[in-house]
């Protein structure tokens, strides 16, 4: 393969997008996190408490 680009584009800033962005940053890649709304967090940010530990979703 020609020289590969050491960066990744992630579409969607919900819990899945954020988690893979953080993991990839830790694994040594530059991440572009593309989110269609004005802030990241997706639906999880709207939840009050998360199951099963009931700590705050934010």
């Amino acid at each position, binding site marked *: 393969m020609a020289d590969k680009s050491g960066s990744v584009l992630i579409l969607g800033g919900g819990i899945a997008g954020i988690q893979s962005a953080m993991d990839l940053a830790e694994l040594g890649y530059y991440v572009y996190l593309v989110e269609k709304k004005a802030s990241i967090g997706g639906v999880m940010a709207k939840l*009050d*408490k998360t199951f099963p530990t*009931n*700590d*705050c979703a*934010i």
Partner: protein
Amino acid sequence: MAETCRQVLKDCGVSPERLSLKWASASEGPRYVQMVTEYVRHIKTLGSLGSAEGEAGQDALTRLDAAGAASAVSKIRTAYGNMAKKFHEANNPDAYTPEAMETAVREKVMPGFREERLGQEVLMRLGAEGIAGSLLCGLLGAKEDEFEKVMTGLVKKGKVKAEGEIFKPA
């Protein structure tokens, strides 16, 4: 830890309700606010330290002083640590009932703690010219047999010498 503190505070003539241990998870802001507000109101009814009903006023501060010194003595701390170790190694969350903790502290930690506290307080109260045994025992608010045991211990350790009825720093 909280139970030990409560029993030591009671022993020093301070109302244990002045110490509160509450749990609030990160998102339970309103619950925290309600707990703090109610706690402040309760302390207001108790009044300033030592002035609440059943508290020992000025004496409480001296006793707390002695208890503070006692709480650094490794014999006391080992008893406390071993008690915690037993609970921890039982590895059974239901064992942490208030009654179980209360009895464990009262039996395993308090006897040694009280004796050490009384000893420390004697050393703090003894002026150069010494104090009569009966007066000292009253000041300490200790029972006869307890007082005897503490004094003989201090004399044996050479910290106090007894001249007839009067005890003096060695």
